């Protein structure tokens, strides 16, 4: 029983990370119907951005104080992630805005490979996994029978807060309205005076910022990162977005928690153990796509029409 609760707690923490990435997938898909394969890599470069800040920018005196170092690392991760995302939007995707759908998808694969390789080649020593600073309270929090690390708790809190914030932004603000309008009918949105380019840039920007936050928090929690974390977590996040009904913000977050639970519980209780936990996620993905392609929340509030 304790094991089950413990694994549920772990699954929720994993889901919180995936959720932050999944929001970027779902928003971009909602606006331009692009599966931005490289979004997982944005998360990855975000993690490395935070690492770079800690390694080269933070004075040693501050490194021990998490309330100084962690926010600065997050800022660094977000800045790097957003910069990369905006560059790829401008130079890789925008020229293909009206091309057949295969073209941007393959471009996204290309961008993904380039980012992975760029980190491996040019980030010092990144051919192998890099130790990530424990830039947060190194403690276990006891919640009844379950004990969860402080850094996992932080991820859950931050993820839920940012998701709620994003949901409010998209439903209540003027730019949020413009985003939903662009997602539903780009031409008519243009007739309302919406500049779709700006909306798309904003979408990439928000998605990348969330992924950057997720990258740093993930690194702090797992305490080592390599250039492959983006691919794997990106696929999880994409699966979560599809599971929730791609285009739906709420769906992406709930889907992410489900994926997190499948992975930890599948690894615990299914045959094959953790070696196959990854497989169960894909099995679920296939079943969802085949039997409920609109996702679990396909009819709920969605960003796209």
């Amino acid at each position, binding site marked *: 029983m304790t094991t089950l609760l413990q694994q549920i707690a772990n699954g929720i923490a994993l889901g919180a990370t995936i959720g932050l990435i999944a929001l970027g997938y779902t928003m971009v898909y909602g606006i331009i119907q692009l599966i931005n394969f490289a979004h997982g890599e944005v998360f990855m470069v975000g993690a490395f951005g935070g690492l770079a800040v800690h390694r080269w920018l933070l004075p040693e005196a501050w490194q021990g104080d998490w309330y100084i170092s962690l926010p600065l690392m997050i800022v660094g991760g977000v800045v790097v992630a957003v910069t990369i995302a905006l560059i790829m939007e401008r130079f890789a995707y925008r020229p293909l805005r009206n091309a057949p759908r295969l073209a941007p998808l393959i471009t996204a694969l290309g961008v993904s490979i380039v980012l992975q390789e760029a980190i491996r080649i040019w980030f010092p020593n990144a051919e192998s996994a890099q130790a990530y600073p424990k830039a947060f309270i190194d403690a276990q929090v006891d919640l009844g029978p379950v004990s969860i690390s402080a850094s996992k708790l932080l991820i859950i809190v931050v993820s839920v807060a940012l998701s709620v914030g994003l949901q409010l932004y998209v439903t209540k603000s003027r730019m949020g*309205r413009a985003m939903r309008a662009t997602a*539903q009918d780009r031409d008519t949105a243009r007739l309302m005076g919406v500049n779709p380019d700006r909306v798309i840039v904003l979408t990439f920007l928000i998605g990348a910022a969330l992924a950057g936050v997720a990258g740093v928090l993930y690194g702090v929690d797992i305490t080592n990162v390599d250039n492959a974390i983006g691919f794997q977590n990106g696929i999880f996040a994409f699966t979560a977005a599809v599971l929730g009904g791609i285009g739906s913000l709420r769906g992406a977050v709930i889907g992410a928690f489900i994926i997190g639970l499948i992975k930890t519980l599948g690894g615990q209780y299914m045959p094959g153990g953790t070696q196959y936990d990854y497989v169960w996620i894909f099995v679920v993905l296939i079943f969802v796509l085949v039997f409920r392609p609109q996702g679990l929340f396909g009819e709920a509030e969605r960003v796209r*029409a």
Partner: protein
Amino acid sequence: MSPLLEVGDLSVAYGAIEAVRDVTFSVDEGQIVSLIGANGAGKTTTLRTVSGLLRPRAGTVRFDGRDISGLPAHSILNLGIAHCPEGRRTFGRMTVEENLLLGAYTRDDEPGIQSDIRRVYELFPVLGQRKNQKAGLFSGGEQQMLAIGRAMMSRPRLLMLDEPSMGLSPIMTNLIFQTISELQSQGTTILLVEQNALAALALSDHGYVIDLGATTLDGPGKELLADERVRSAYLGED
């Protein structure tokens, strides 16, 4: 006085296919002008070009004396042209109020926006009663009201309406055309594209006939209504 909108020798193509090849017309301030013609004649393409959704291949579009051809749609809206597109295209997953707020997207005078929303609700009381419902649940006529109301939210000097009566019941059509006159009397210039040539010309100060992508005939609305060629071609009379 120069006309508010002046379109000269306009040509627009989709790839190799020329949808509009020689369209010339003008709209004076305060007028209702209609473009009539058969399906596929190029009327919608013309409006989409004026509003910046398409780029012209050749020709000029001048608004208030300024060349606007090739400007992006949002800049053109800011100059004072609103385009109420064919098929209404309301945002079905958003509420009436959100649709209207989107119409005012480029404005930031909050009190003015609120008073304009109230104006729209006065003009179309049904919208006010259902302002928190999703637009997708509305009937065609109600959506048309919403689309017109939304277009008015940018306080345009020129309102372009593309087939506002399409698919509507006769009663609803009447209501929409009444509204159009009312908007004119309040000072909005209107460019109307219609297949319902009879109703459109009856309302119009001036009309143009577009045929195969070119303006072929024009004159005051009443005169065109009386014109043999127009009657035989577009009003279903021999």
